[in-house]
């Protein structure tokens, strides 16, 4: 049984990390990061089988690929809190000589990151490649990928979606962060994509809907359900409804905080809504 008290406290702390990181350098993407905080906590603390020594060879453990790399703040916070690198290093986010680049990369050797992402639409293909590699290695672990919904406007995703079905890539669980927002506004206004779940179904994926994508219990349950669907000849996708900016009242229900940092006063308001629980970096 998950320790929800701890996980909720961790969520407060991760949100604080995100807010403080982007505030310090007055840049970065808090909206989508906050919206996916609970997903990252569920995935890294309750679902993924990870090796204890944080080695990066990719064998015999679950792997995660972040395709929408701009939500790096939540990724970095989780990796640090999980122990991949020192929590203190979060203070170097987006600063010169840092391993915590604006968008995640392997280039500076940050543990936990397995591919560079940021230019959108590439992560699912990479995750498929890693899943194929696992099959060749008779490695029974699972590959996870997270994509943004706006990101699905990139055509490469649909090449990958088609491929995964045709080739029975069934050791892969993709999740779409369906927050309905992108830089220029609502996805419905920028480029309506119709029913994304139905599109995945039409392409032959097992589709699982997650209505409460900011609820830890629901996410954990859904990810566990998704794991039971692996190994059966079909790729699995979770369509996860989230609220961009979740946990900070004035950042919710708007796309305004997609790529904008809070000022000093705004930070104070946001932090007051998210108490320090596990120690700020």
């Amino acid at each position, binding site marked *: 049984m998950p320790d929800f008290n701890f996980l909720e406290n961790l969520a407060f702390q991760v949100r604080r990390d995100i807010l403080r990181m982007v505030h310090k350098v007055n840049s970065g993407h808090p909206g989508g990061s906050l919206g996916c905080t609970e997903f990252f906590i569920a995935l890294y603390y309750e679902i993924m089988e990870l090796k204890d020594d944080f080695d990066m060879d*990719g064998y015999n453990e679950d792997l995660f690929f972040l395709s929408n790399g701009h939500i790096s703040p939540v990724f970095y916070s989780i990796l640090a809190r999980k122990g991949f690198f020192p929590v203190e290093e979060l203070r170097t986010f987006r600063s010169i000589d840092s391993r915590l680049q604006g968008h995640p990369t392997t280039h500076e050797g940050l543990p936990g990151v397995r591919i560079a992402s940021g230019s959108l639409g590439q992560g699912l293909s990479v995750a498929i490649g890693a899943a194929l590699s696992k099959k060749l290695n008779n490695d029974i672990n699972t590959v996870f990928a997270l994509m943004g919904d706006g990101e699905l406007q990139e055509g490469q995703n649909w090449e990958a979606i088609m491929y995964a079905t045709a080739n029975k890539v069934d050791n892969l669980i993709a999740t779409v962060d369906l927050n309905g927002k992108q830089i220029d506004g609502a996805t419905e206004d920028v480029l309506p994509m119709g029913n994304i779940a139905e599109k995945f179904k039409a392409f032959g994926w097992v589709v699982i809907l997650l209505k409460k994508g900011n609820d830890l219990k629901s996410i954990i349950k859904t990810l566990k359900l998704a794991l039971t669907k692996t190994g059966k000849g079909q790729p699995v996708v979770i369509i996860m409804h989230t609220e961009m900016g979740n946990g900070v009242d004035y950042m919710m229900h708007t796309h305004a905080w997609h790529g904008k940092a809070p000022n000093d006063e705004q930070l104070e308001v946001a932090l007051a809504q998210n108490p320090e629980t596990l120690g700020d970096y």
Partner: protein
Amino acid sequence: MKKYKDQGKIDTRSGFGAGLTELGRTNPNVVALCADLVGSLKMQDFINENPDRFFQIGIAEANMMGIAAGLTIGGKIPFTGTFANFSTGRVYDQIRQSIAYSGKNVKICASHAGITLGEDGATHQILEDIGLMKMLPGMTVINPCDFNQTKAATIAIADYQGPVYLRFGRPKVANFTTDDIPFEIGKGIVLNTGKDVTIAATGHLVWEALKAAEDLNAVGISAEVINFHTIKPLDSELLISSVQKTGCIVSAEEHNYLGGLGESIAGEIARNHPTPQEFVATKDTFGESGAPAQLMEKYGLNKNSIIASCKKAISRK
């Protein structure tokens, strides 16, 4: 001067296919991917012998590059196969982010490079690919000259850790190197020594350079012919020592003069030993349909162009 014998006309892409087949037998980590061009890339033997290690991606090159990047995680050595145009320009950002910047051990194997693809015309020819690839930090760029060398290069890059762009072609050309020469990435090969002019050639133009050197020799001009099969990293030491001796250079390649071997050479000699240089390359133009030999003649990519350029370079000393 040393005479080279054409052991028979054969395409360099068949050298790639033969190398890949051998790797299939010797290196269990080698996997191959193709975007609906198995026949053109000569990958069928590898597929027959290693069906589980081959991935038919379909006409989806972007996805192919991403999958190749992912396959490296877990120790695979992916060789991607499609035309040079679709191996580079079409997927530049995928190569840049998921392979080069991510430091993935992917071998991008590109056939039908240059203008000698011929009749399909400019949509399928590419004369910019060397430039595109050499601009990427950490990318190794190789353009072997004949069947034997392409086979050797294919085998050699499997043992090198890091992204590689391997460029070869469609037409049947002279096979003149021997099959016992180990391929050393980044090491130019002096095919003929000379004192009046250096001919620095890559790919299909190496054979043309050898023929040009023979004709020049007949009129009393001593040309040093170097095969720069690796454009990046360029063998600067060999290049500089040669131009110090000859005092002028002609670069020869089936590529635009912007971005190609000649440009890399110009940079090296400008920094280290300023020397007159002439460029045998396309002059910032697209190609067109035609028979390969006709195109090489029309675009000035053959023995005659090299001879004329050598005389011009010598006159500028």
